[in-house]
């Protein structure tokens, strides 16, 4: 028991490393705040392309894009962009490689979520909207998309949580986010406590969101009763 506290919950070490970890936490939040809107917007555009386009080519291109990035592990994608591209000459700023890799990966998940939401909206809604003279764009904006988003709110939140978890991958290319800070300090103090502290910080950030997610899901399945 003592050794557990000594090695995992060492308060003295916690006090020492907390400032470093908080810096890392800040970077984690920063990364998430950049990637989520970009991924969501890209995903929405892709979903619109897939569901609204009359052209088979557009639809299949979107599906191919989405399936490709769903099959590609994000860590591999990041390594590819970060280490591979410099071989072509020129510097790849770390942040750019990270953001691009994350957005490419995340946009495909957002696309799937939005697509499901849009397809769940009853066909009659578009007809009713068009029958009053609204054009396609207006019908999407005022009638279809509000309902689509409401349909998949839990999944959207779930995806945002995934992005925060995804940021740990950036630690592999030395991005100073929370996990990187934990590992760096761990090797300095020869004690796994910093990693446990980092885990606790992730829990503080994400556990409440997971609870909110659970209650949103419960509300949704409640509505699906009819």
């Amino acid at each position, binding site marked *: 028991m003592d050794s557990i506290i000594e090695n995992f919950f060492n308060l003295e070490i916690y006090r020492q490393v907390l400032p470093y970890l908080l810096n890392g936490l800040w970077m984690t939040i920063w990364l998430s705040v950049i990637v989520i809107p970009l991924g969501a917007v890209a995903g929405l555009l892709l979903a619109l392309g897939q569901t609204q386009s009359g052209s088979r080519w557009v639809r299949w291109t979107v599906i191919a894009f989405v399936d490709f990035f769903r099959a590609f592990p994000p860590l591999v994608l990041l390594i590819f962009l970060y280490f591979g591209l410099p071989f072509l000459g020129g510097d790849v700023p770390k942040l750019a490689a990270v953001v691009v890799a994350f957005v490419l990966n995340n946009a495909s998940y957002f696309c799937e979520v939005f697509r499901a939401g849009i397809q769940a909206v009853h066909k009659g*809604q578009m007809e*009713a909207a068009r*029958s*009053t*003279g609204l054009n396609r764009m*207006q019908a999407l904006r005022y009638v279809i998309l509000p309902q689509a988003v409401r349909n998949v709110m839990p999944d959207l939140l779930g995806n945002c949580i995934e992005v925060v978890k995804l940021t740990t991958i950036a630690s592999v290319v030395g991005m100073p986010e929370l996990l990187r800070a934990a590992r760096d300090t761990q090797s300095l103090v020869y004690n796994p406590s910093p990693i446990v502290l980092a885990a606790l910080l992730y829990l503080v950030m994400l556990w409440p969101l997971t609870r909110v997610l659970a209650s949103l899901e419960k509300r949704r399945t409640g509505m699906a009763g009819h």
Partner: protein
Amino acid sequence: MSAPILELVGLKKSYGSQEVLRGVELRVRPAELVCVIGPSGSGKSTMLRCCNRLEEPSAGQVVLDGQDITRPDTDINRVRQSVGMVFQHFNLYPHLSALENVTLALRRVQKKDRAQAEAIARDALTQVGLGHKADAFPAQLSGGQQQRVGIARAIALKPKVMLFDEPTSALDPELVDEVLRVMRALREGGMTMLVVTHEMAFAHAVADRVVFMDGGVVAEQGTPAEVFENPREARTRSFIGRYMDAKSASPA
């Protein structure tokens, strides 16, 4: 004989190899209430939905107030402001209140400002007897009330013609009357109405003209008296047979 406000000329519609409309000819005069009856699969709804091009005809024309709206260069969104549609399943926007359902097109299509749009919307809702429910959401309204909001949504745009696609088929029997009453009131106000319906009694009592469709064409048409009491075609007779038998069996 006033010029027709809505005219269907040689209207055809096929889905792949399946021919649903085989050359429909129909003329609707201003302020006329035309009821379209017929067996399922006769193409009634498809024909109706061609009138505002929610279905695209495979051949033929739809002429609205002298304008051929099946031409590719038609501004269909503009045309749809002149053709109101009421759906079998209401299709109210669940995330908007009754008032907002009605004002949406007024504000975004007709570009009215908020105050103007709301005034018109409240007026339309009052006309269908739901002025006091303006802030209710569809989920809080009964089926009959939802359909009346659907009617208000369409009439708020001041259309020239109203299309009704089986407006009462999805309603519980006790809620049908309130919708039919609104439709009668509209007719008295001089609205031109094309109604696809199963409500034979309504067609018999209120329509100016009854059109019987079968197999993708207009099989017979005439005044309600002509079609219901003196049908010429055998198939018309067999279709309305059951209604007329029930009618004569029960007190009128």
